[in-house]
């Protein structure tokens, strides 16, 4: 396999970002989801803070639970964008001319993966930042003295979330190369990923804010992401992409 030429990958990425920015179908949910989920998480956390004389649920656990709940973002956002990444080139008939450029299959795969990953990760990081800062401010003003499990929070937001994002992107791209249209690709990718995501969040919450457990979960997701990447790479051939799903 020859070396990836990053200037070409960057062109694919730039083009995809420009297209996302011009597509209402993609852009609205892209911003609506993080805003609502972060808002929800903060809102529910604020009720725990305000009623924190209830000793059954510690503030730290609540803070961590809603941070885990935000893991929906690094899965849903890549599904939204990644499912469209290849199949939209096909339904818009742009795939053939894109494949006629000197881009290699690997360069195309990398560019196509970064397209969903970059905005999804930026928005996920922003959501975690807003949630973390918001929660800290709430605690300082209404429950001074309580301390939040920042280690687990950072591992969730900075390690587990990006790894989940990678996994979701690779799945979405793989589905996108075989699909007939964007909608069916999104459905199929959701069908594959949601049964994985929900137990992951629940297990994460059940295990509680223990950094070791978060590391273990991250390792499991990383292994799975590598496996999916391997399969996606093996199946990502221009010939099959061009012929599949038409």
């Amino acid at each position, binding site marked *: 396999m*020859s070396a990836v030429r990053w*200037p*070409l990958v960057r*062109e*694919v990425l730039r*083009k995809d970002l*420009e*297209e996302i920015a*011009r*597509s209402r179908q993609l852009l609205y949910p892209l911003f609506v989801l993080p805003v609502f989920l972060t808002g929800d998480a903060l809102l529910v956390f604020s009720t725990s803070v305000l009623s924190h004389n209830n000793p059954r649920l510690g503030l730290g656990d609540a803070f961590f639970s809603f941070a885990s709940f935000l893991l929906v973002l690094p899965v849903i956002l890549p599904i939204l964008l990644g499912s469209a990444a290849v199949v939209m080139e096909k339904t*818009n*008939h*742009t*795939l*053939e*001319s*894109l*494949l*006629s*450029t*000197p*881009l*290699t*299959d690997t360069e195309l795969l990398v560019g196509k993966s970064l397209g969903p990953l970059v905005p999804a990760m930026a928005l996920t990081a922003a959501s975690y930042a807003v949630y973390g800062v918001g929660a800290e401010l709430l605690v300082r003003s209404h429950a001074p003295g309580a301390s939040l499990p920042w280690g687990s929070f950072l591992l969730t937001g900075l390690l587990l979330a990006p790894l989940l994002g990678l996994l979701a992107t690779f799945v979405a791209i793989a589905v996108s190369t075989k699909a007939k249209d964007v909608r069916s690709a999104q459905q199929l990718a959701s069908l594959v990923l949601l049964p994985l995501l929900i137990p992951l969040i629940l297990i994460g919450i059940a295990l509680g804010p223990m950094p070791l457990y978060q590391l273990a979960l991250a390792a499991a997701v990383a292994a799975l992401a590598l496996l999916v990447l391997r399969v996606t790479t093996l199946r990502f*051939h*221009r*010939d099959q992409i*061009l*012929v599949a799903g038409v």
Partner: protein
Amino acid sequence: MGEYLVADDLTRSYGGAAPAVDGLSFSVRRGELFALLGPNGAGKTTTIRLLTGLLGPSRGTAYVDGMDVRDAEKGPEIRRRIGLLPEAAGLYESLTVHRNLELYGRLFGLSGTDLEGRIRGQLTSLGLTDRADHRAGTLSKGLKQRLAIARALLHEPECVVLDEPITGLDPEAAKSVRDALVALRAQGRTILLSTHHLEDADRLSDRVAVIRGRLLAVDTPAGLKRRLFRRLVAIELSAADATAEQLAAGVAGVNSVHRDGPRLTLDLARGEEEVPEAVERLVRAGYRIRSVAAIEPSLEEAYLRLLEASPRTDSTGAGS
């Protein structure tokens, strides 16, 4: 004069029973304008995709300037040699005309003032300068096609491959594409195009291939006509019927007679010696003759006859 594109037993199936393209062997010489003809579903687009390395062959192979399309390492170099106009223009409709060209230029490794200069040159020569900042999706079909052609030519490829470049264009737009083809040919580029416009193929191309799953013929347009029609003469009657047709067909040296309204077209084996005999028989039988004229067959007639004469393989045409 080397061979630039070579199909060598080129075969491709899409998983169905019979291959879409079956055992094609022909070559396009450097600097020649070569037209690929064939009915819908004949495998023209498939052949073009195989010859440009977009699809892999199921059997046989193709070479571009000596490079085997099966060699993945050579892929980028092969694609750099070729400027492709796909069957669907395939523009990024939400991006501007200029951005569409810039993107492709960069993917072909161009940049800076060189790229800007080429974009301006293409926009000027295809009359798109005042549309440079319009979104590609707002262009008419003809302008989209021109933009797609500009995109294919931007990296100044040695070989230009166009899949039905004229289909769906108005006469003026079609003429501008034809002129562009003639200009490319004059620049010494190798050109492969598929088309249903047989008049264009006749006028523009050095050689044509007729395919229907398999290769039916490769020849110059004149050679193909000569091969299929030795000599054609049209006899126009006031009214022609099956009896008239049989009378003419009964003359020794007449290969076949084609009846179209009041007109009989005779395909003659040797020369025109049989014409007086045929005319005499018709007159004696009471037919009135309006005119007798030698006709130069069109490529279209040759093409239709070739398809008629070639048994259908079950690979194509069935059902669709």
